[in-house]
């Protein structure tokens, strides 16, 4: 069976009744803000409209367009447990105009949300397989819902390996979750940092250097990879060398994005729109495209 990214059950503008409100966000309230790293925060958001909130659902890998009123809109991936679709969490690195404005938000502030947007990780198709999850830096965010999903449906999957790399121990997102997951006896968690501090006892190096430690049969495994472009590129190549077929290397891609619904033309990689055809792609889908260096 050739793996492909999955079509979600619900998608903004397709079957959620956005209708003439395609570009009009729903109002959500910031319920909680957690500092993950010096430049990363996780926001818990709940829709003001209770009917909309109770019918809201999304799947791991999907994202939303967040409006900071008075500033603008930016695409951010869901980062929380998909079994509790609302309130949901978004993990945001302060980088651009909108994400910096998000970091200035306080509990009780209102933002606008359009979503869920995009496709999702193939969690149905990969049932019965071993999972290798490789992430770098803030690339763990779109994989966190996937991890919650497979742990909640633990018997559906074989061995689970989580590889996580960051610049320094302090730059790791979800430190509490990582501890919880590492303590479980039904999954393997390997962590690596580029620059260790005095107390770091685990691996030092790029995340790809953890791959030789993994004991998996590539023929029965699906690899989920997310991180900076250069990390995806090298991890994907290492995985292919290990014997993974191109459809078994599944990744979440990013591009500068405006509308989120396939109209503005910014996020195209060749003929593929990251917002509606993605953000989840298999290596097989994108390897021949000249507009991506992978």
């Amino acid at each position: 069976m050739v793996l492909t990214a999955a079509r979600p059950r619900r998608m903004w503008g397709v079957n959620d009744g956005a209708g003439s409100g395609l570009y009009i966000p729903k109002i959500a309230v910031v319920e909680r803000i957690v500092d993950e790293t010096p430049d990363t925060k996780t926001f818990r958001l709940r829709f003001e409209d209770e009917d909309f909130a109770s019918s809201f659902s999304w799947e791991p890998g999907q994202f939303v367009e967040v409006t900071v009123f008075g500033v603008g809109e930016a695409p951010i991936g869901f980062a929380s447990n998909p079994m509790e679709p609302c309130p949901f969490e978004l993990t945001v690195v302060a980088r651009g105009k909108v994400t910096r404005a998000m970091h200035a938000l306080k509990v009780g502030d209102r933002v606008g949300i359009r979503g869920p947007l995009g496709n999702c990780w193939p969690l149905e198709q990969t049932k019965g397989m071993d999972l290798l999850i490789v992430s770098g830096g803030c690339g763990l965010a779109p994989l966190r819902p996937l991890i919650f999903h497979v742990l909640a449906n633990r018997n559906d999957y074989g061995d689970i390996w989580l590889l996580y790399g960051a610049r320094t121990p302090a730059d790791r997102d979800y430190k509490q979750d990582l501890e919880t997951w590492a303590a479980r006896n039904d999954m393997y968690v390997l962590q690596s940092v580029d620059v260790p501090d005095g107390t770091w006892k685990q691996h030092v190096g790029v995340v790809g250097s953890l791959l030789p430690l993994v004991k998996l049969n590539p023929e029965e495994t699906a690899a989920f990879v997310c991180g900076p472009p250069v990390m995806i590129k090298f991890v994907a190549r290492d995985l292919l060398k290990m014997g993974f077929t191109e459809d078994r290397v599944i990744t979440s891609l990013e591009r500068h994005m405006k509308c989120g619904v396939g109209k503005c033309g910014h996020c195209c990689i060749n003929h593929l729109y990251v917002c509606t055809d993605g953000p989840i792609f298999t290596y097989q889908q994108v390897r021949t495209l000249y507009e991506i260096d992978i």
Partner: protein
Amino acid sequence: MKVGSAFILDKARVGEFIESLGSEMQIVAPKRQFGGDVAFAAIKHPDEISWDYGNDIHPPKRFLLPHYEVLFRYKTNDSIQIEPVMEERPQAIVGIRSCDVTALRQQERFFCSQICDPHFESRSKNTVLFSLVCNQPREECFCICCDSGPYLFSGYDVQLTDLGDRFLYEVGSEKGAEVSAPREHLLANASEKDLKLRDSIWLNADAKFQTTSYLAKAILFISANEVPQSVWDQFGAECFRCGSCTNLCPVCSCFNVEDTKDGDGAFTRWRYWDSCQFAGFTREASGYNPRATFGSRVQRRFYHKASYQYITRDGRHGCVGCGRCVVGCMADLGVPSVVKRLRRAVSEQAKLEAPA
């Protein structure tokens, strides 16, 4: 009134016809401007229409996808209040050329497919296209190579062909029939002779093209990524990065979205035309730009216009042969000359690679 039926609109009655139409909707038509150029504009009186014109250098796409369009307004004072904005005014674009009709139909397919853009859909639903066959293509026109002119067999609501003292008036859609019916008394039935005259005028126009573009070959090369990178880089070196090719293109539709402040706590979210030829088009917040070189942006433009991958998506290649990029480009990167150079470059490459 049946779709596919043909009538005669006497030129002496065109004024009355336009006035009657104008009482129901805004009329957009080619109008001579102060400097002497003809541009599409809203008109109040039928005499303002300049029937004898080549084409407007600015495509009429702006009447369906304006340069600047408000998506919604909002206030942030006490609570967040969002006020949707939607344009629903009916309009007729009279005298639009076949190439531009083809382009607008392609935009309609793109904007109103699976995920429907409500703003574009609302304008397009309220727009009726009266196309005017080109009896005399301009020097830079090559629609005949792009299956989009100088006359059409479908796509128009009403198609007019200038027969000298009268127009042949062909109804091409239900919408065309609907707007024609109340003015049927101004129309006469077309005779066999009128249709024969139309055919000869059409054939005569076909013979007058001065520019050609063998797009099919370029589509092959671009789709298979056979064009040497050095050729794109050369185009990139020649490009002035002004964006006029995409702004003047009737098929291009990329836009940017921005929020601006109107006053105390009042904001507008609007969209405006953007261009894949600008560096900021793909630059991410981190500073990383996946389309960093000038050549890669020119390549992007042609990949979107002429690759099987996009033809499969959009149902058609992205060039209608209007020739505006030929006129607008300060370098020489209009579609026909780029296509010509791509063909030459690939055949030279093939010669180099062929065994001696």
